[in-house]
């Protein structure tokens, strides 16, 4: 039966994360952006909510309640607080979820328990590449069989690179082996791997690096899923749903700020919200944001009807949702800057940051997963 009302359990998760976003994330958002860093305490607090742990297999200490839809609900709320913080908080999933979906029993046993603990364990995934026209589905980074493993060569960019946690986890590098992309669990200190901090217009608080891989050797056991391998298409699909949810959250946040400002601010003797040009713009924002959320929910719900390895079959729905979100998040954050006028342009208010963050959605892939 078609139903748009969250269940009590879904609603509880939404409320919990919304409160966390309101009380813990949002108040720090501006300072995080200016200082280009996320406080370890924030990440630890978020970890304590057990969002990731809950989704991991029970066999490895998790709650065994994996749901892309729940992931989308969580992502929207976190990003409503702040996109960079949300990406930081969700970053352990960049390794934990692919390992849960595709990892060999050994890989799961080695890596998953750490993510089910109360401690924030940093993790990362390296997919995007810096050359013009880079194709996330078909990386140029190569993996060549060697006697005892693989040699990785190539370059990656926009790789989340947080530190912290009990033990440094490997970065999951996607490279093409015999024409098909595969993931390789690569130690951060592997010889030949060079990480250079990178800076961007937005999501400044999320530490990122450019990676160069020159003759990086990893053992055979580093291949995600071992002999069976993994499906990049499935991961990108899950990444697109996550991004769509995050973008919806950013847009909603900017919309609310613009709405509240418009109801407060006077010009020519009236609240500016009473001007059709402003009011209709706000109405369009609200409509588009709701459309984005429903598209995202649908794609996430379809993922939940599909075995993780076949997630790629939902690529169409995920892509439709993300394509709307990319447009809408940009329009809404830009519109919010516009509604605030001069105040939209200064770093005292959040819309300028939300605009910078929203613009990144067009280039992101797999910066978070559901």
């Amino acid at each position: 039966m078609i139903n748009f009302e969250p269940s009590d359990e879904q609603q509880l998760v939404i409320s919990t994360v919304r409160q966390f976003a309101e009380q813990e994330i949002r108040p720090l958002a501006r300072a995080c952006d200016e200082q280009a860093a996320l406080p370890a305490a924030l990440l630890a607090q978020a970890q304590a909510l057990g969002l990731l742990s809950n989704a991991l297999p029970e066999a490895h200490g998790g709650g065994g309640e994996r749901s892309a839809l729940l992931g989308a609900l969580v992502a929207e709320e976190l990003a409503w607080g702040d996109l960079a913080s949300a990406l930081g908080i969700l970053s352990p999933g960049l390794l934990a979820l692919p390992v849960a979906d595709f990892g060999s029993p050994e890989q799961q046993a080695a890596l998953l328990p750490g993510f089910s603990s109360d401690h924030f364990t940093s993790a990362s995934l390296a997919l995007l590449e810096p050359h013009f026209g880079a194709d996330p589905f078909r990386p140029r980074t190569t993996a060549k069989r060697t006697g005892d493993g693989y040699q990785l060569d190539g370059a990656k960019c926009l790789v989340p690179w947080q530190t912290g946690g009990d033990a440094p986890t490997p970065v999951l590098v996607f490279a093409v082996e015999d024409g098909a992309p595969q993931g390789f669990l690569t130690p951060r200190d592997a010889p030949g791997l060079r990480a250079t901090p990178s800076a961007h217009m937005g999501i400044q608080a999320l530490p990122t690096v450019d990676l160069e891989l020159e003759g990086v050797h990893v053992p055979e056991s580093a291949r995600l899923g071992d002999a069976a391998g993994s499906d990049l298409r499935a991961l990108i699909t899950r990444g697109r749903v996550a991004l769509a949810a995050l973008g919806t959250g950013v847009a909603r946040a900017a919309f609310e700020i613009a709405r509240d400002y418009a109801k407060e601010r006077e010009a020519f003797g009236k609240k500016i919200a009473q001007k059709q040009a402003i009011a209709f713009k706000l109405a369009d924002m609200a409509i588009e944001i709701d459309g984005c959320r429903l598209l995202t929910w649908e794609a996430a719900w379809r993922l939940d009807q599909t075995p993780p390895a076949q997630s790629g079959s939902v690529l169409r729905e995920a892509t439709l949702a993300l394509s709307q979100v990319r447009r809408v998040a940009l329009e809404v954050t830009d519109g919010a800057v516009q509604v605030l006028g001069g105040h939209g342009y200064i770093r005292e208010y959040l819309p300028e940051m939300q605009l910078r963050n929203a613009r990144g959605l067009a280039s992101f892939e797999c910066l978070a997963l559901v």
Partner: protein
Amino acid sequence: MAISFEPSEATKQARAHFHSIAREQLRPISRRYDDQEHDLPTEWVDWYWRNGRGQAPQVDGPSDGFVQVCVQTEELCWGDAGLYLRTPFAGLGGSAVLAAGNSEQKQRFLSVFQGDGHPVWGAMAITEPQAGSDSANIQTTAERDGDDWVLNGTKIFCTGGEGASQIEGGFVVVWATIDRSAGRGGIKAFVVPAGTKGMTLVGLENKLGIRASDTATLRFENCRVPTGNLLGSAEVHKKGANKDAKAKGGGKGFKGAMATFDASRPIVAAMAVGVGRAALDCVLETLDREGATPRYDAPPTEQTALERDVIEMEAELQAARLLTWRAAAMMNQGRPNNLEASMAKAKAGLAVTHITQKAVELLGPGGYSKKLLVEKWMRDAKINDIFEGTQQINQLIVARRILDYPSGMLR
């Protein structure tokens, strides 16, 4: 239950049922009744009336309720929106009777739609030549004279107004003021049966699209209906009157009309989605045939403009559909859906205007020619941005809701 996008079995079966009606009954005569504007599409009207009024097979199990109605509407309008609007339905007039009429009135006016007689139509007449979407500014008057109400005025853009005013058994619900000094509070709805003396069909509009649908101008000159044809109470609540009293008895006047719109907007939005889907399906089928199926994994710099357009069209259509279903699902739960219904209507009207316009472009000179139906769907689609509240009216309602402004704060 949790969020779910799985239609019930009944909805799936209804979808298949109405899809085949659309394909077999409507599409074959689409072009003809676009060309032969104002002709009654007798094949369709008779087929529909004879064949159980299109009733879907009964299915046990949970029902999607109003969402299923949206699905059915989408299918029929995928077939032909103009013919859909000419279907012998009680229409908006029927919705008004259902929403504001007493049980005697419901029996008297609506039973004929379940009867064995000839096809009948219902319609609603609100818009006036000088008013447009400003329905509070109604000039048509109803004066009490003995046991009658006497109506005087002119109504335009009355969808289905020819059938409803001319074919015996049908009726037009006419909105008129019984006390102009009372503003909205004085506006009431009257059921005028077809053939009532004093109600004249002045003419039918020549339109851009939905040409199979009869958009009528009706004149009321000393048109008498018995007092029993007033929907709701005759009590007039003036501005600033006690709110409780308003909520109790007066809610069936102007507010009743508005409530009818809240209920009808998801259906109208579903109509739009049907037309938009017709155009999008045609594009997708053409692309498949030409071996140009759009990729969802094209690298950003290699994606074709066509692929991007199609992805945008698909996403827009689905967003419109989901917003529509959401507004309908809220009705199932009896929740107020004024905001969500207006969102759905605004989004659907705009989305399908763009989708159908784009479809014509993507199909090149062929899309522009009358050999395909896409050009017709573009013409049909545009009505969804206009009738049952223009784009602007729906934006206005949404804006008031999200700003929590009464109408006086934002006009």
